C-alpha cells in the first residue's frame, strides 16, 4: 500500500494545486464563509466550554475504552446484533467480505465512512467481485472519479459543477447540464435504483453509545437511513475510538460536530440504531445486523501518553477548514486518507511513515487548528512530535541534522551568523536587504526580499545601550531570539529606548541562544530540549521580574513548549523561567505602563498582523492594539488579522510556493483595508510581510510594534 513519493514530487503536486484557479477560489471562499458560519452556529453557547466538555468526554472514553467496548458488545448482543472485532485493516476487510459471502450479498450500498476509507474497504470488496456504490453525493462523485475524499465532511469540495456535469454525462451516457439542482437530481435518480437493488448496506458511525448499545450516524442527505433500511443486511464499521459511555455524551458530540464541521446547528438527519430493525425482504422480516469494531493501531495509540489525545477527534474536519495550507492546496495534498491537521498525524499511525513523511512538514505551526478542534487536541504539537518520530525512524535529513547540531552549540551558531554577515556583502550592495539570494536558495525562494544579517548584532550593541537606572521601576531581562539579535537589532534598540524612558532596568544574558522552535519545526526534538535547557540556565540566576521578548514565536515556545520539552530534566526551573516570559505589548500594558508611550504626531492608518503565536499561542489579542491606539495611530481591523502570514520558519524554506500564496492573500487583505502601515509583533512575520510587501511593491510599510513607539519622555539617564 505504501508508495514512495519524493519530496520533489510532493512539492510538484503542491505547485499543480496552486495553479488550479478553481480550487484556489473554492478553498478561499470556503475558508472565509466557514469563519462566519462557525461563529453564528455557536452564538448561543460558550464554545470553549463545549469543546472542553467534549474533550473531557472523549479523553475519558479513550482511557476506559476496554470497559466501554465490552459493555457495548454485551448490550449489542442482547439487542440481537452480531459484533466482530478486527485488529487490523485486513481483518476488518476480511470480516466484511465474509459477511457478504455468507449472506450471498452481491450489491452493496454504502454511506460515507472515513474508517472504510482508512482500510481501503471498497477496493477489497471490489476485488472480491462485489459491486460497491457510495451513496453520499460527494463520496459517489469521488468514487466515480477514482479519487479519495478531499475533505472529511465535504469529499468533493475540490471539484467544480462543470467537472461533476462532465462526470455525470459519462455515467448516464447523456449530456447533463451543470446546474447544481440538476446534478443533484441525477444523483437522486441514479442512486435510488442502487438502494433498491442492494443486498447489503454499509455505514460507519459517528459514535457508539456503550450504555445502550446504540450507534449514531450524522448525515445531511439521509443516505445512511436508506442504506440501513432497505437492504436485508446492515454492516457498520466502527473505530473503537467512537465509543462513548452514555446518551448524554452522544448528545454533547451532536451539539458540537455539525456546528464545527459546517456551521450547522444540527444536520438534517441524526440516526440512532440500537438493534436490527424490521426488513420485510429479510428472513423473519428482521435485518441481519453486524458491527465490526476496528482497532488498527488505536489501542496502542490509546496507551501512548503523548498521542492518546489523537483519539479525541470527532472527525468534524474543522482543522482543515481553518488551515492556511489547506486553503491554498486543498485536501489531496493535505492528507493521505485523513485530511487536515489530524490527517498529518493519523497518516503516520494508519498509513505509515512513508506516506506521512512529507505531509507532516506541510504545517506552518500557526495553531489555527488547535483553536477550533472539537476534541481539544493539541494538533500543532503532535504534528511536530510525529515529524520528530519519523526522522528518528527514517533518518534525519542532513540539513535538519546540521541545524540541530549547530543550534546546540551557541558559540558555533553565532560565529556562523557573523561569518555569514561578512559573506553576504556582495549580495547586499550596501542596502539592508539581500539584493539577490545566495546559491543555496532556489528561484522559488525569491518571492520576498530577505533582510541582510546585521554586521553588529544586538548582543554587541547592548552594553552601549544599557546604562544603570537609579531606582528602577522594574527589572527585566531581554530574550532577543536569533532574528532580532542578528537581523533586526533595531527592533530591540527601539524597545531599549522605551525601557529607559520608563525607568526599567534591563539585563541581557550573553549565554542565551535560539529559543529552540526552529529545531522543533525541523523535527529535531533533542536539539530543542538541549537549547531549552541552556536558555533556562542562562537566565537562572538573574534578579529580574520578567523576561521580555519582542518575538511572539520565542515567547510562545518558551512559555508553552519548553516546560514540556525539559520536563524530565528541569521541570521546576522551567516553570520559574516560563512564568516570567512576556511579550512587549503585554509588558507595556500590564507592567511598564502605557503612559510611557508618546502620542505620535505622525499618525498612520495602521493594520495589525496578529502573529499566530501571539493570538493563539499566548492568547494575547488586545494588548498590541491598545498600545497601537495609545501611540496615536489609527488602528484598522482587517478580515485576516489572525490568519498566518505563511512564514512558519523552515516552512517557508521547505514550501516556498505555498508560503508565497499565503503571504499574497494576507497582503491583499491589508491593502484592501487602506492601511498605510502594517504592524506586527514578531520578527519572523516582519521578515515575511516586509519581504513580500517590498517584492510586490505594496503601498504600505511593515514595522515591528517597537518601531512605531516612542517614549513619552526621553531617557532618564
Amino acid at each position, binding site marked *: 500500500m505504501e508508495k514512495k513519493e519524493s519530496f520533489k514530487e510532493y512539492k510538484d503536486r503542491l505547485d499543480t494545486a496552486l495553479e488550479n484557479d478553481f480550487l484556489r477560489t*473554492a478553498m478561499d*471562499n470556503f475558508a472565509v464563509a466557514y469563519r462566519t458560519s462557525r461563529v453564528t452556529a455557536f452564538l448561543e453557547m460558550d464554545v470553549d466550554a463545549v469543546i472542553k466538555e467534549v474533550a473531557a468526554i472523549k479523553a475519558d472514553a479513550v482511557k476506559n475504552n476496554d470497559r466501554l467496548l465490552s459493555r457495548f458488545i454485551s448490550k449489542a448482543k442482547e*439487542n*440481537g446484533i452480531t459484533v466482530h472485532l478486527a485488529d487490523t485493516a485486513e481483518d476488518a476487510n476480511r470480516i466484511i467480505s465474509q459477511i457478504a459471502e455468507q449472506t450471498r450479498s452481491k450489491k452493496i450500498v454504502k454511506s460515507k465512512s472515513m474508517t472504510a476509507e482508512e482500510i481501503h474497504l471498497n477496493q477489497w470488496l471490489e476485488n472480491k467481485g462485489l459491486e460497491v456504490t457510495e451513496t*453520499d*453525493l*460527494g463520496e459517489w*462523485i469521488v468514487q466515480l472519479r477514482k479519487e479519495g475524499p478531499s475533505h472529511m465532511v*465535504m*469529499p*468533493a*469540495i475540490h*471539484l467544480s*459543477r462543470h467537472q*461533476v456535469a462532465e462526470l455525470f454525462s459519462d455515467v448516464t451516457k447523456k449530456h447533463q447540464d451543470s446546474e*447544481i*439542482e440538476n446534478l*443533484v437530481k441525477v*444523483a*437522486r*435518480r441514479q*442512486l*435510488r*435504483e442502487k438502494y*433498491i437493488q442492494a443486498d447489503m448496506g454499509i455505514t460507519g458511525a459517528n459514535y457508539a*453509545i456503550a450504555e*445502550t448499545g446504540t450507534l449514531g450516524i450524522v448525515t*445531511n*442527505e*439521509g443516505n445512511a*437511513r*436508506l442504506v*440501513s*433500511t*432497505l437492504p436485508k443486511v446492515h454492516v457498520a464499521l466502527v473505530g473503537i475510538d467512537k465509543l462513548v459511555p*452514555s*446518551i*448524554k455524551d452522544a*448528545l454533547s458530540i*451532536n*451539539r458540537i460536530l455539525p456546528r464545527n464541521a*459546517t456551521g450547522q*446547528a*444540527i*444536520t*438534517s*438527519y*441524526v*440516526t*440512532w440504531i*440500537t*438493534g*436490527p*430493525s*424490521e*426488513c*420485510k*425482504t429479510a428472513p423473519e*422480516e*428482521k435485518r441481519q445486523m453486524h458491527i465490526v469494531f476496528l482497532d488498527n493501531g488505536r489501542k496502542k495509540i490509546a496507551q501512548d501518553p503523548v498521542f492518546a489525545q489523537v483519539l479525541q477527534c470527532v472527525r468534524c474536519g474543522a482543522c482543515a477548514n481553518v488551515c492556511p495550507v489547506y486553503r491554498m492546496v486543498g485536501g489531496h495534498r493535505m492528507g493521505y486518507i485523513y485530511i487536515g491537521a489530524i490527517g498529518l498525524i493519523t497518516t503516520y499511525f494508519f498509513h505509515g511513515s512513508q506516506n506521512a513523511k512529507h505531509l507532516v512538514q506541510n504545517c506552518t505551526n500557526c495553531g489555527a487548528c488547535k483553536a477550533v478542534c472539537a476534541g481539544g487536541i493539541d494538533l500543532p504539537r503532535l504534528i511536530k512530535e510525529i515529524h520528530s518520530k519519523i526522522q528518528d525512524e527514517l533518518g534525519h535529513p542532513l540539513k535538519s541534522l546540521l541545524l540541530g547540531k549547530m543550534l546546540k552549540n551557541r558559540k558555533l551558531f553565532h560565529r556562523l551568523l557573523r561569518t555569514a554577515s561578512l559573506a553576504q556583502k556582495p549580495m547586499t550592495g550596501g542596502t539592508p536587504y539581500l539584493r539577490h539570494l545566495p546559491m543555496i536558495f532556489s528561484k522559488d525562494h525569491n518571492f520576498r526580499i530577505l533582510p541582510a544579517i546585521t554586521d553588529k548584532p544586538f548582543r554587541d550593541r547592548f552594553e552601549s545601550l544599557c546604562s544603570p537606572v537609579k531606582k528602577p521601576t522594574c527589572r527585566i531581562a531581554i530574550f532577543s531570539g536569533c532574528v532580532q539579535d542578528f537581523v533586526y537589532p533595531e527592533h530591540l534598540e527601539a524597545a531599549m529606548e522605551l525601557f529607559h524612558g520608563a525607568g526599567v532596568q534591563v539585563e541581557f544574558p550573553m549565554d542565551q541562544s535560539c529559543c529552540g522552535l526552529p529545531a522543533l519545526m525541523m523535527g529535531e526534538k533533542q536539539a530543542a530540549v538541549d537549547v531549552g535547557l541552556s536558555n533556562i540556565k542562562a537566565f537562572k540566576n538573574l534578579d529580574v521580574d520578567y523576561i521580555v521578548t519582542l518575538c511572539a514565536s520565542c515567547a510562545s515556545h518558551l512559555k508553552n513548549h519548553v516546560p514540556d520539552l525539559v520536563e524530565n530534566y528541569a521541570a521546576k526551573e522551567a516553570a520559574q523561567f516560563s512564568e516570567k516570559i512576556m511579550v512587549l505589548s503585554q509588558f507595556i500594558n500590564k507592567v511598564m505602563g502605557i503612559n510611557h508611550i508618546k502620542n505620535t504626531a505622525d499618525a498612520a492608518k495602521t493594520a495589525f498582523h496578529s502573529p499566530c503565536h501571539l493570538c493563539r499561542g499566548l492568547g494575547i489579542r488586545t494588548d498590541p492594539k491598545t498600545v497601537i491606539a495609545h501611540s496615536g495611530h489609527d488602528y484598522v481591523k482587517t478580515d485576516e488579522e489572525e490568519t498566518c502570514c505563511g512564514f512558519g520558519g523552515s516552512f517557508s524554506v521547505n514550501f516556498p510556493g505555498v508560503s508565497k500564496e499565503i503571504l499574497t492573500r494576507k497582503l491583499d487583505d491589508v491593502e484592501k483595508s487602506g492601511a498605510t502601515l502594517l504592524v506586527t509583533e514578531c520578527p519572523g512575520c516582519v521578515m515575511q510581510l516586509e519581504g513580500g510587501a517590498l517584492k510586490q511593491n505594496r503601498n504600505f510599510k511593515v514595522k515591528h510594534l517597537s518601531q512605531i513607539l516612542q517614549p513619552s519622555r526621553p531617557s532618564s539617564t
Partner: protein
Amino acid sequence: MNKEKLISKFKEKASLVAAIVHEVPGITEALKKTVELCLEKDLCENLMPTTQTPGNLKIIAAPNLEPEVYDALQLLCKKNGITLIKEDVRHHPGGIEMGVTVMDFGIAETGTLVLNSDSEETRLSTMLCETHVAILKTSDIRETALIMSEELNEMVKKPSSYTAFITGASRTADIERVLAIGVHGPLALHILLTGD
C-alpha cells in the same frame, strides 16, 4: 421556558432549515391540511420508471397513524382521488407524493423532529416521499435534546429501536458548497403542530 415560547422557538428554528410549520387545532384539521397539501403538490417524479408503473393517482403513505385516524384520512383521500397506503411502501421505490407520520417529539433548540420506529413502513414513508408531513403535538416539544435524555434513554430501550432526528428536508452542499434540497429523501418538510 413556557409553552408559548417553546412553540415559537421550535417554529423559528424549524423555519431556519426551510421546514414549513403550520399550526392546526387538532388531528382532524391536520388531516385536512395534509390532503390540501397533497392536492396542491405536483405529481411526483418517478425515479424508477422501469420498475414502478406510473400511476395517475397521487399516493400518501401513512403507516403509523392510529387506526381511526387512518380511516378518517382514508375517507378524505377517497373524496379527493388520492391513494392512501400503509403497507408495501418498499414497492414504490420510484417515489410517492407524500409520507405522513406522527412524530414522538420535537426539539425547540434546533427545530428537530424525533421519530422512533422499528417499522420499515414508517421509516420508508419518511424517506421515499417527495413531501414529508410530520404531525407533532405541541405538548411533545422539548427545549433541548439534552434535557430529554431520559426520554431518549427509554426510547432506545425498545426492541429494535431505530430513532431518527429529522431537521428540515434532505439536503446536500457537496457540489461547490451550494445548498441543494432533496438529494435522497424528501424535497419538502411540512410540520403540522397540533394542540392536545
